[in-house]
């Protein structure tokens, strides 16, 4: 199965307002897809549809070879949301406890032993370099550290596909680059397919293997380096009228 996700002719409205129009694309196994578009371009909506948080109105989505309506997520797909940064800071939970939430889909009446859980949790914390913070309160960590913990929570169940919705919001610029490196590692070393939603087109093109530009409909899908070599005018045509390339010099 080469395609994990197949989106075909999806159109979506909120009341009378059309947010997606005839959107079709595929997500290949092993790829690192950057899903970019200006604010209000429908990025979050398409993600919600793929995650089953929003009901499909028109068109079809297949996840792991099954129509999305029949797909029951048993740990194949994981998610790091934009809102992960805005959880209640006073919540009395340790980093370790937050990561353990990622194991819920494995929980059934026949639970594996606690030791096995502990091992998985520490492995995930180690992967994101947050081992020493295991027993810290989640609210005491910095934005970047919290986001690493949320990545650990998302990968602890060993998913095939990880979707991240604007994960760098609230993370300071210095840590953003490290954050993208961590994502590249997850993609290359663990073979996790990634969809990274961002409005920051400049930085992510250097990390992703596929670039998907969305502005109500798909404006570009392909190799990020081809996209980089286009003139601003060509890009504006593809991307929509209000595109700005943000360049980061490090």
């Amino acid at each position: 199965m080469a395609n994990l996700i197949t989106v075909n002719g999806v159109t979506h409205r909120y009341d009378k307002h059309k947010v997606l129009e005839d959107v079709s694309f595929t997500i290949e196994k092993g790829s690192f897809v950057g899903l970019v578009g200006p604010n209000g371009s429908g990025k979050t909506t398409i993600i919600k549809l793929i995650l089953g948080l929003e009901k499909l109105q028109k068109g079809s989505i297949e996840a792991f070879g099954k129509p999305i309506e029949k797909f029951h997520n048993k740990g194949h797909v994981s998610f790091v949301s934009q809102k992960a940064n805005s959880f209640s800071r006073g919540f009395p939970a340790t980093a370790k406890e937050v990561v353990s939430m990622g194991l819920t889909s494995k929980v059934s009446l026949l639970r594996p032993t606690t030791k096995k859980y502990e091992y998985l949790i520490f492995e995930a914390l180690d992967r994101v370099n947050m081992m020493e913070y295991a027993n810290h309160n989640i609210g005491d960590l910095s934005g970047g550290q919290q986001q690493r913990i949320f990545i650990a929570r998302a990968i602890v169940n060993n998913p095939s596909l990880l979707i991240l919705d604007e994960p760098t919001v609230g993370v300071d610029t210095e840590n953003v680059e490290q954050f993208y490196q961590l994502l590249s590692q997850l993609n290359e070393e663990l073979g996790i397919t990634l969809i990274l939603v961002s409005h920051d087109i400049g930085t992510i093109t250097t990390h992703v293997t596929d670039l998907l530009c969305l502005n109500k409909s798909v404006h570009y899908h392909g190799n990020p380096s081809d996209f980089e070599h286009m003139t601003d005018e060509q890009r504006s045509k593809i991307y929509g009228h209000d595109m700005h390339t943000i360049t980061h010099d490090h």
Partner: protein
Amino acid sequence: MLDAILNFEILRNTFYTGLIVGLLAPLLGTFIVVRRLSLIADGLSHVTLAGISFGLFMQKKYTLLALTPFHTGIIFSIIGAIVIENLRGVYKAFQEIAIPITLSIGVGLSVVFIAMADGINTDIYAYLFGSVAAVSRSDLYLVLFTAVFVIVVITFLYKELFALSFDEEFATVSGIRAKIIHYLFIIMTALVIAASIRIVGVLLVSALMTLPVATAMRIAKSFKQTIVYSIIFGEVAVIIGLITGYYLEIPPGGTIVITSAILLGLTLLIKKWYLAYIYKG
């Protein structure tokens, strides 16, 4: 009081019920507080009062003996819980509005039923503020049944409840059936509120669900610790409150909540001194 507990069954029942409620209320309270739903307990306790008044009215007018006011209280509480959860679905952007709606309907119905049952009497007084001598053996069995149900559900669904309380979106994406678990949770809350009312009364039941948790949150490092400390504070308050209430002839609702408040105040002070000491050192 020990003598009295050994000698009088009704006091013994109250004491056991108190111990059970001292565990259940803070246990569920921890989830309620972190979900920012502290006021739900108030909403439900007033709906329970409507059920109790309805039961008192039926008892008086029709000598309906099969259902005691305690039973009708539980039934109303569960119905109220389902209504709150549905209203929260209807008013997605203003979920907290579900609580004043149910609370006021609860009080409104209570006033009507109390008036129809010919006004306030000692029974209703015991339901409002708690009583040390109000728990019959069958009430105790019902409370025990509630305890077993709640503890079994929380043991099996701990991770799901925890994940839903922290981040509902992530939990839903992970395949947790949020809707069913929400209903189950609020029904458990309704049962625990109905059970707690015998001891602390309608007006103070929410205090037993929130004060011990507020105290625990100041010193606990993890969610599990928060639960354990909440239960310890809850039990201490119930035991001290019941004993002082018995000797001073004050309804235990008052003494239990005052004890809880003192524990909270002490914890805040000790934490403040401790932090000052650490910074100095």
